[in-house]
């Protein structure tokens, strides 16, 4: 599983730290870090919560690149 750079970029665009995003979606900072590094596959509910917190859609953050 590769890194989720789209999530990291979306978070950085809002100048939001991992800790802030984690608090917004009620998970630990390490879980956000694991998702960004591709070490953990979140559930759909968590994906939706992250999308709402970052103002993005599921496709924009979690869909695989066409080149893969």
């Amino acid at each position: 599983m590769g890194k989720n750079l789209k999530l990291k970029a979306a978070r950085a665009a809002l100048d939001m730290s991992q800790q802030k995003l984690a608090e917004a979606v009620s998970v630990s900072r390490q879980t956000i870090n694991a998702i960004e590094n591709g070490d953990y596959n979140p559930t759909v509910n968590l994906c939706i919560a992250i999308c709402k917190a970052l103002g993005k859609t599921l496709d924009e953050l979690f869909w695989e690149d066409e080149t893969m």
Partner: protein
Amino acid sequence: MKKDYLDKDFDERQIAERGRAFRNAYLTMAAAMTVMFCINDVMEIYFFDSSAFYMMPTVLSLAVFMCTAVRKDAFEGFSGISNAVPAIFGVLGLFLTVSSIIEIVRDRVIFDINGHLDDCFNHLFCGLCYLVVGIIYIIKKISDKKAENI
């Protein structure tokens, strides 16, 4: 995801990691007791007395659970409330380890009158297990502090 009252402070990843940690601890305890049973009763070496038979696998499995959970950031919940139990274990482990080594060196006793390993070796084993937990907790805390600054 529905959570029961024991999991209310852990996110989904932490619950999964804690499940793996519990599995590893259970398998460790089963393996340790099997090895000790083989040594004591099958090979009839009678190395361990009854207290060691129950204490050592229990403490070892507890250490495996705590080390695994701490390493995977699943020992403390996501609420940010610090749980200093591993640090307390580390201090206790240091005390047990040092006192056991002193006792072993001073008394020069390896086996008791029944031919079993002396109690000080049980204490040394437990102390080392607790000490490892404390060390891993401290290392994890230091690395987390550095990572939070990213």
